[in-house]
Each structure stands twice: as C-alpha cells, then as structure tokens.
C-alpha cells in the first residue's frame, strides 16, 4: 500500500468527526478536522487534556473509525477498508508508540519486538535478523532476553520504538511518547524519533501537550481544542 499512490500525501483527513454518545449527550471528541500531512513530515498534534488529539491519532492509526468524514492514507480511504484490511494497515503501514509503552510484560524484549512480525506473517527465518536490527537501532541489542520489568522507562520506550519499527512502516504515530519519562530520557527518545524521520524518511505524527517538545522537533503544529483544529498546521 505505501507505494500504491506515491504522489498522494501520507495522510489526509477531510471533515473528520468522531462522536460518542454518553447517556443522552453527544460528545464531539473530533469535530470536523481537515488536515494534510506530506510524506516524510514531522508534525505535532498539540492540545490540552480531552482536546481530542489522542482520538484523532487513533483514527489515523486505524484503531477507530470516524463517525463521518474521510481519512486517506497514501490516498486510500480507511473508512472503506474491511476489518482485515485495516488490521493489515496497522501492521504494515503504521507503527505506534504509546505513553505507557504497552510492552507485553510476560514476553522478553525479543518476543515483544517479534510480535508484529508474527502478526504480519513474516517468514520465521527473517525474523531474528529484523528483530536484532530494530533493537540495535535503539541501542538495546544486548538486552534481547530481558523482560520489560527489568528495564528502565527509557529503555522500555526504546524497545517499543523498535517494535514500531520492525515491520518497516512508513508512518510513525507517537502518543505522548515522553509523557512517562524524565526530561533527559524524553529527549533521548525524541532524538531517536527524529532520527527515524530523517534517516528512514518516516512520516511522524506526535501527540503531545508539551509545546516545548513540539517546537523543538516538529516542523508543523496542529492545535486541537474541543475536537476542532484551532491552528491549521502553520509551519514554524
């Protein structure tokens, strides 16, 4: 899919809404968002807590479907994808990093990083090399056999970066990647993400509430307030 329409932007949304019903009230978590992110861009989604930035990120990740509007990834509408196609999109086109790392605690680092390869049905013989390569890129090649609980927060987030990387996706979606880390470790993680953006040409969309981080790393910023874009990706 990534190369199916090379002239299309990485992501483009048109009047996307995501409404929830809570009792009789309708919560407009995302309300008519239209944006376009070019391939290889590093953008930040900023906003206060409850502004809808994580909901928007989930929509872009194909984890959730919009109530209305369209989301095009490399020119293909996510809304028209079947469940299995959407799973494939999550597996091969996007990689996700979460605030709470979301490594499976019972698995070793190697097994955690191998998981996306299993789901993508990558040949067994190719897996070890790819896991090794991904962990090496984040400086954890020597910690293959460790379980997440045996690692520091920074190391866990690096492992989750390796996991997001292992299927060689073109888009990296990061949801508050430094939220659980001290500023020095957070900076280290951000440097890795920046490296992926520059060296691998990955499109990065980062959700954060820290304007400082966004200013330092992202080329464009989108501010969300009550589900609406208040600044439409003005270049910094």
């Amino acid at each position: 899919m990534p190369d199916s329409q090379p002239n299309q932007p990485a992501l483009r949304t048109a009047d996307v809404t995501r409404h929830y019903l809570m009792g009789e009230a309708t919560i407009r978590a995302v309300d008519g968002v239209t944006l376009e992110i070019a391939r290889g861009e590093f953008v930040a989604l900023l906003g206060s807590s409850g502004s809808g930035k994580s909901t928007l990120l989930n929509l872009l990740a194909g984890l959730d479907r919009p109530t209305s509007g369209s989301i095009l990834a490399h020119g293909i509408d996510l809304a028209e994808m079947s469940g299995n196609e959407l799973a494939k999109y999550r597996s091969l086109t996007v990689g996700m990093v979460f605030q709470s790392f979301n490594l499976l605690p019972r698995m070793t680092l190697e097994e955690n990083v191998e998981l996306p390869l299993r789901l993508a049905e990558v040949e067994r013989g190719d897996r070890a090399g790819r896991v090794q390569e991904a962990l090496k890129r984040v400086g954890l090649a020597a910690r293959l056999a460790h379980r997440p609980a045996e690692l520091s927060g920074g190391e866990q987030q690096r492992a989750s970066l390796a996991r997001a990387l292992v299927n060689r996706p073109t888009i990296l979606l990061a949801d508050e990647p430094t939220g659980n880390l001290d500023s020095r470790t957070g900076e280290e993680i951000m440097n890795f993400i920046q490296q992926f953006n520059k060296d691998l040409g990955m499109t990065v969309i980062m959700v954060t509430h820290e304007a400082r981080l966004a200013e330092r790393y992202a080329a464009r910023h989108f501010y969300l307030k009550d589900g609406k874009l208040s600044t439409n990706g003005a270049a910094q």
Partner: protein
Amino acid sequence: MKTRDLMELAGRNLREAMLRNSLTTLGIAVGVASLVAMLSLGIGLQKLVMGRLQSSGLFDRVYVTPRPIGGSLSGRGGGGRGGRGRVQQSEDVATPGLPPQLQPPMKPLTSAVRKQLAAMPNIVAVFPELRFTADLRYGGTGHVTSASSVPFDARGTGQFDNVTGSFFSGANANEAILHMDLAQQLADQGNFKPNDLIGQEVTIRYPQRKPVDAPPNQRPQDIVANGEFGQGFTIQSADVKVKVVGLVSGESAGPGGFGGARIMLPLELVERLNAVQGFDVREVVANPGETIYPSLTMLIDNPNHVQAVEDAVKQMGFGAFSLFDAARNLQLVFRVFDSFLLVFGSLALAVASLGIVNTLVMAILERRHEIGVLKALGAADRDVRQLFFTEAGVMGLVGGVLGVFLGWGIGQLINFGLNKWLVSQNLTPQKIWLVPLWLVAAAIVFSIAVSLAAGLYPASRAAKLDPVKALRYE
C-alpha cells in the same frame, strides 16, 4: 497469523495462568475419563457376553435341513428346483404313518450339496453331526455313553479354548477329547486324577455299519423307487483305539454343542468308522445311491454374516435356522445400554466444558489490555478469535489425552479389584473393561470438539473487543 505462531502464543498464554488452566484441563480430563470409563465398561461387557455366546457355538452357525422349517412333509415348496428326479419321485410315494426321519426328503442334503454349501462365501466349514452310542473301555471297565463328531475347524471357534490338554492334532487323528464328567468317573474308579488320562490310549467300542451285497434273489418288493433295490446293511460291534488328548468341562447346550456327548472324536475319523446313524435305517428300504445327511451345520466366519448365509440357503430351497436373531436383540439391548452410559459419561464433560467457558472469559478480562496491544500491532479480529480458539482446543487435547489415561487407569483398577474378588469366590477372572483404540481416538476428538464449542463464545467476545477501549484498560 500462521498456525505455528498461534500454537506458540496459545501455549505461552496457557502456561502463564498455569494453575487455573491446569485445573480447567483436569476438569476436562475427569469428564473424558468418566466417558471412557463408562463406555469401556459397556464395550467390555458386550464383548464378554457376545464372546461367551459365540464360543457356545450358537451364533456362528446355520443349521441346514432338507426341507424348509415349518414346511409340510408332502408340500412342494423348494423341492422342485434342482432336485434330482429320482428322489423327487420318492416324495410322491411318501408313506403315510412313517416317522419324519423316514420320510423321503423334498431335496436331499447330498455330499454334492455339502460341497456347494461349503463353496459359499464366508463359510469356514460345512459338516454333518454324526452321533452314536459308544462304550469307552479303559482299565478293564466300560462306560456306555454318547460320542459325537467334531469338525477340525471347531478349533478356531472358541468352543475348545478352555480345553485341558490340547485339541485334535489333525482332522483324521485317532484322538479323543473327553468330557470332564466322564474323565472324573474313570478317575474315581481307577483311583487317579482326571488329567492323568491325557496321553492315555482308550478303546471305543461302537456299532459299525457293514454293507450287504446286492441280494442274490431279487424280490419284487425290494424294488422301492425308480427300479432300484433296497440293499440294507448289518450292524456289528467294532473297536477303535484312540488317544485322549484333551478334557473339556461345562455344558455346551443346543445343536452346536455336540449334544452333550461325552466323547468327542474328529469328524473324519467318525466318517471312517462308519458308525451306524439313526437315519441309516432309511437306506434299508430306499437306497439313494449316495450319502445323504439328515442335517448339516455351516460354520460361518463371523456372526455378522450369519443372516446372509441363512437367507441364501433358504433361497436354495433348504431349511435353515440360526440363533442369530437372539444375538441381534442382545446387541440392541447393548446399544441402548451404551447410549445411557454415553449420556451419563458426557454429563461430566458438559460440566467441564463450562469450566473452559469460565476460564476463557476470565482470561479475556485479564488480557483485555493485551488484546488491545495485539490489535494496535496489526492483529485482526480473526487472529484474536483463533488465538482463544486454539487455547480452548489445546486444553481439550491435553484434557482428552489425560482423560483417556485416567479412564483406562480407573478401568484397570476396577478390573483388578473385581478379578481379585472373583478369584476369591472361586470364579474365573474376566476382562469386563475394554478400551478399544477407536474409543481412545473418539474420546480425544470429542474432547477437542466440546472444548472448541465451549471456546466459541469467549473467542468471539475477545475478537470483538474495541482496541481503543482495550488499550485504555489497565
């Protein structure tokens, strides 16, 4: 996801909650064990009873008589086809007032018919039952008793499985098997043990039939039918020495049980002895020119073929009967019995399957977040469903295998206890517990099927989890 990855992930998940999954699997094992135990009891009992009946010689035989059973003596049914003209004619001159065995048959059981019957499929042997009164002489005294012929093929029917000593060494051997009653009488008189008789030579005195040459002066009244003459024979005492090779006890009832004879001799030997038979008298007045049997017994290779053979023989115009119907009714009773055992045995497995549902539903709650992560990393609903399904299947497989062993063990234990009791009561030990290979396979397959069915609901529930909500769940 590929099958191997599914199996690895399922195995890992099952190991993680070891205690709970082990208990659930043990529940399935107990269910399968109860099923296996119940059914193997049913199968074992059925096999025991059917085996007993078969070794009684009643269920693998068809008895053939010259005329259809229940047919009238002067009736025409069956006799018209293929019957020989000469004998056919004799039917028309049936003498009123003669006992049935002296009535000319509608279609005689000649040696040609015997060969024809023996050539039919699934037939082990076709033999007449020759019987005569004999005087067994040993140690200077005699015992008048009955002797009967035993076909050499009877060796394989189970009737002589419990023989002390051995069966005849050959079809034509000068050997005898004695009934234990007779052996006991001889032993009491001679002050030795019955078993000492094995290997001893005894003399059997019997009434021998000797043919008479054609009468020198033919009388008009000698012409019986078709211009032939009744020749007649003389009866005289004859001796034959035979070696006692075996002793049998118990009472074999019915036509297949050698009629309660106390001396059993190989059929070919008896035929050679030319001992006089009740129906020989007929030859005095009507010489058919060849051997005619009053009845023939057909030994069938398997009781399941009895009905077909019986029908075929009836088609040929002979009378045929077997005790197969009785066996069939008995099999029906066992089927009903087995069905009850199956239902009761399955109850435990049904309860165990609820355990699977419970365990997997608990696993969904515990692994909710993990399912969210899997979906975020690219797992489709189908992958999650298959994962839970595989876990249920693995529990079913392991539970099934364990259950079969457990059920087999319970059976062995009960068999052991029962036989200990039987021996203490001076009874023969029996194998009432039988676990055939098909039951092992069926129990494991059934266990997996029940477990998969139990996994249906949890698996589809896990698959439908909303990944966004699942990821938020800690």
